[in-house]
């Protein structure tokens, strides 16, 4: 911890605090991330998104994960890491594509080097290792930052990915956002290890725990891990201790499994409040700058709202178009059947298809 919850630097903090401009950039990102989270939540309530797993309370982790990477690096997010993808520059509407329901993934992973949001837990971690290893084989300086949650550390793919990364010395930073719950199941049911960072020991890689609500500490620890990976020193495990302030998704009821006072205690450790207090106390942030951050966040919210409220009529042909590079003869036949059903073939101009008649 570099900054205490009230924003004052800790004894260890002063020597490691990132430059003020970095912290300001981080604060701007967090303000935008929180506004984005709130906006996405509202869009679910308005029926515009199917569901939204919010990272409210985890904004420091989300923003730091993006901020420590260079343009040539890769980010591997989970379904809860939409704000991290936005922080990396992916269009917020495209980020929410999965949740809007038009398609399974809304953005081009190669454009910003952000892998698709991954829903099955920990399964993206071995992909991250493969991407990193391929880059290393070609002598590129790419680093991959792979995100997962505390629950995912129980999955076999977490183990296999860390082990592969260690054995091949792949330039990967595994960043676990320990938000204390896997839907309803508390960390105590995932592990009895002293910490998730301890798991690095078993793979022979460094494991470091960091206050996940302290953006300054996150930037310090994660950028160090990224630099070591880039220098060829291999992978690292970082555990950010944070808290999922809201329920797993809007479909979840968190009051069934955790007490209000526990939530309140974490709300008091809010990552935005902490950093803002520090930056104001140091005179790095003034009202005008704060207002500019809020305005920029509002722009993200507006862009999100407008984009999600814009209805795109999904094309059934797309269901067949991307299964293979070239559709199989069977898919060509099946698509013709769909066309027939939807009354789009020539004969249906005279006579409505059965599907149309029953609509």
């Amino acid at each position, binding site marked *: 911890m570099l900054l205490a919850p009230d924003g004052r630097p800790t004894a260890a903090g002063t020597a490691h605090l990132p430059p003020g401009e970095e912290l300001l950039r981080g604060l701007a990102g967090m303000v935008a991330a929180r506004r984005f989270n709130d906006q996405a939540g509202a869009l679910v309530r308005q029926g515009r998104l199917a569901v939204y797993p919010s990272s409210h309370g985890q904004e420091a982790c989300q923003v730091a994960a993006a901020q420590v990477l260079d343009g040539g690096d890769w980010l591997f997010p989970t379904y809860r890491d939409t704000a991290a993808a936005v922080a990396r520059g992916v269009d917020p509407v495209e980020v929410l594509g999965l949740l809007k329901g038009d398609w*399974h993934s809304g953005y081009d*992973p190669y454009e910003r080097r952000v892998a698709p949001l991954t829903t099955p837990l920990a399964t993206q971690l071995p992909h991250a290792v493969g991407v990193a290893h391929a880059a290393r084989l070609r002598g590129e300086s790419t680093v991959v930052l792979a995100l997962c949650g505390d629950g995912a550390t129980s999955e076999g793919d977490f183990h296999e990915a860390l082990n592969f990364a260690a054995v091949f010395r792949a330039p990967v930073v595994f960043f676990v956002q320990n938000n204390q719950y896997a839907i309803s199941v508390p960390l105590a049911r995932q592990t009895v290890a002293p910490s998730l960072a301890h798991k690095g020991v078993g793979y022979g890689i460094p494991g470091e725990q960091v206050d996940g609500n302290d953006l300054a500490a996150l930037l310090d620890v994660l950028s160090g891990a990224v630099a070591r990976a880039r220098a060829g020193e291999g992978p690292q495990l970082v555990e950010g201790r944070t808290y999922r302030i809201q329920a797993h998704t809007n479909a979840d009821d968190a009051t069934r499994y955790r007490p209000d006072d526990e939530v309140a205690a974490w709300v008091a450790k809010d990552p935005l409040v902490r950093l803002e207090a520090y930056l104001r106390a140091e005179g790095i942030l003034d009202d005008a700058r704060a207002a500019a951050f809020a305005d920029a966040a509002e722009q993200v919210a507006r862009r999100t709202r407008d984009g999600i409220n814009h209805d795109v009529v999904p094309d059934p042909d797309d269901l067949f*178009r991307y299964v293979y*590079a070239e559709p*199989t003869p069977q898919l060509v036949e099946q698509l013709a059947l769909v066309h027939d059903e939807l009354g789009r073939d020539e004969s249906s101009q005279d006579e409505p298809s059965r599907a149309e008649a029953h609509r």
Partner: protein
Amino acid sequence: MTTTAVAHETLSTAQAINRALHDAMAEDPAVLVLGEDVGPLGGVFRVTDGLTATFGEDRCVDTPLAEAGIAGFAVGLAMNGMRPVIEMQFDAFAYPAFEQVVSHIAKMRNRTRGRVGLPLVIRVPYAGGVGGVEHHCDSSESYYAHTPGLHVVAPSNPSDAYSLLRSAIASPDPVVFLEPKKLYWAKGEVALGERREPGIGTAVVRRQGTDATLIAYGPSVPAAMEAAEEAAREGRSLQVVDLRSIVPFDDATVCAAVESTGRAVVIAEAAGFASVASEIAARVSERCFHSLSAPVRRVTGFDIPYPPPKLEHVQLPSVARILDAVDDLQWEDA
């Protein structure tokens, strides 16, 4: 047909696969071979023999013993410009990788609207007939064939093993390459070089015949050929279709063959219920009904776990069982 074969050699299936890997690696530095024991040992079936010595341990890679990790690692490699060929040491050892195969390898192109294709090959030594212990003889093709987004091929001879593997490695899509273990040591003439036609998705008529059509793939093709030979001695002319490719399925060749004889028997080692053989029988019945003189018959493994070595002969489609099925094709009505 774009055949640029440069030479013919007599090779075993295992040697033909080895040569295909070698030639693909020599041609394209992005081709990597990964798996358990594929390095200096050359694989438990010696299929990757010499590849590490020739191309180095960065190109033919012994991995940790973790199949999900291998498959997931290959996804990342393929996302980032490589063409990984991964070996699952045995059919039943591939199951830990199943989530990666079904949820990511098969779906990545579709998930990303074609932006992220995964040109990777999953080699699986598969099926029985080699006296293998439990977990070494599964016919797992139906699991893969049932998963949209995968191509699934099964060669029945060394020449197809070479050309289909070259096609698989060149494919922009993931291919499950099923290697019939009992044919590893079978020898045949192999046309080498960049030979990719007929490619994935094409069945061939292995033997001409006029009375009935035997439809088989992979390890069942030699059984079908033997049955046709035996039937010829009994005065019955059986045609044999070798699918080569399960997905995509070559309806055109299969239907033309069945329509020419009016009778069909589908042969496969896998348990018959909800199997590839069932799918073929259904397709042939739907598409060739008016040409059929008898219901399509299936000769498959029974719906039991694969037997121990001393009982596997009970499970495998034998020549006798194939000929019994042929005898059942309502010849009295002919």
